């Protein structure tokens, strides 16, 4: 019996032996680079099934996902509303705290509810008055600096005369050289620094701040920036022009300085402030 006859008689085992040899040969010589086309075909065949599986499983999961997402949307909307409120409160508190920390002042936040009918916009109407212990001559601040003083108080409102008006000079200080002068409104946003001699050190770009000498405006609040410096005709004084960066026409919120207070009582001194902070902290826990 020849070898071929033997193999034919044991065909099954022969084929198995060949397959085993081929498998071992593949194991010994396998290289991933040669099977790219086969892998492509395999992927082409199987991918639709995998894709369909994902689609079907996605459909089954869609109802549950939809329910979860609806709940999540509701929660997020609620949280968003809370965060928006917290943001506004935080912004107000930050501004208030910053003022109180740095200036140690008892500030009364006021909304500008009106302006006088004068075309020069020299007077504001605010929404706080005697009920908030507002008194005449109290200084008034904005976020950018000193803006004026209270000239008239009513039970629930008050008038504020801006520094950008005639007959309302402010004692000021050159922040760099500490030269003292009187700042008077000239026109538009331009001011004139008076009572400055030629020997005083005032330069273009210097910041002018309230000096606190006049008895009304507290010390250290920005007023204007020196824009031009020239000697006067008399030869002994300087003609100094300054520009104020505050847009008096767009003031919406101002702060009346009710009192100067010790620093340890300055932070959140008001009961309302304390309550707000306590609520915020409690809500965050």
């Amino acid at each position: 019996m020849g070898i071929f006859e033997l193999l034919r008689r044991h065909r099954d085992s022969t084929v198995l032996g060949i397959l085993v040899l081929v498998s071992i040969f593949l194991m010994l010589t396998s290289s991933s680079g040669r099977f790219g086309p086969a892998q492509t075909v395999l992927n082409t065949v199987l991918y639709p099934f995998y894709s369909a599986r994902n689609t079907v499983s996605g459909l089954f999961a869609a109802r549950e996902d939809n329910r979860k997402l609806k709940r999540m949307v509701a929660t997020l909307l609620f949280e968003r509303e809370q965060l928006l409120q917290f943001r506004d409160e935080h912004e107000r508190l930050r501004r208030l705290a910053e003022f109180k920390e740095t200036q140690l002042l008892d500030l009364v936040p006021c909304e500008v509810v009106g302006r006088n009918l004068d075309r020069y916009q020299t007077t504001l109407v605010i929404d706080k008055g005697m009920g908030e212990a507002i008194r005449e001559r109290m200084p008034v601040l904005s976020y950018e600096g000193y803006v004026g003083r209270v000239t008239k108080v009513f039970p629930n409102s008050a008038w504020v005369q801006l520094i950008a008006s005639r007959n309302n000079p402010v004692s000021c200080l050159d922040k760099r050289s500490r030269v003292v002068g009187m700042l008077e409104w000239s026109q538009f946003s331009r001011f004139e620094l008076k009572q400055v001699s030629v020997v005083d050190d005032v330069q273009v770009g210097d910041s002018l701040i309230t000096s606190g000498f006049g008895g009304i405006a507290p010390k250290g609040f920005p007023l204007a920036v020196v824009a031009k410096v020239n000697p006067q005709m008399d030869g002994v004084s300087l003609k100094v022009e300054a520009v104020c960066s505050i847009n008096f026409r767009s003031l919406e919120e101002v702060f009346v300085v009710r009192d100067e207070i010790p620093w340890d009582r300055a932070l959140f001194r008001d009961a309302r402030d304390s309550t707000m902070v306590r609520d915020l902290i409690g809500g965050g826990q």
Partner: protein
Amino acid sequence: MRAPSVGIVLIVFFLLQVSVADSITFARIGPDFPLLIAVYFAIFRGALAGSLFGFAVGLLQDFFNPSGLGLNALAKSIVGHLAGRMGAQTDRDNPLFLMAVFGAASLAHDFIYLLFFTQFNLGKFIIEWLAVGVPSAIYTAVAGGVVHALVAVLLSEAVRHLGKTRSF
């Protein structure tokens, strides 16, 4: 109960592999549907066809990871051959017999596969075979038997329903 056609069962095994196999595998222990395809075909088509089909199925599996090319082909061709021989000698439609063959085939398959996969490191081989191979063999046997029985029942019902419809 009518014996299901081999082609239908193979298709069901294939669909299960591409649909739920990953979902019902836990800690690497799960049913080996490609093995069931090769073994089921071998039982009903004999040792020669079984070894060839097992080799083809294994090679397709190996294409997913060419660095181990030949591993599945070797194991499945041997298992296919053995399953074909067993199927020729006993009652192939007996679900218990099928489950026994599935289980034994899975054990043998993993035995061969792990021997080469661990490069004859007996320590690793024994741990893997006992921890994964044996439970997976039981899982595979049960899954194969259940699928076979379900397909048989469904097919019988379909044929019966079809016969009633025709009688009207």
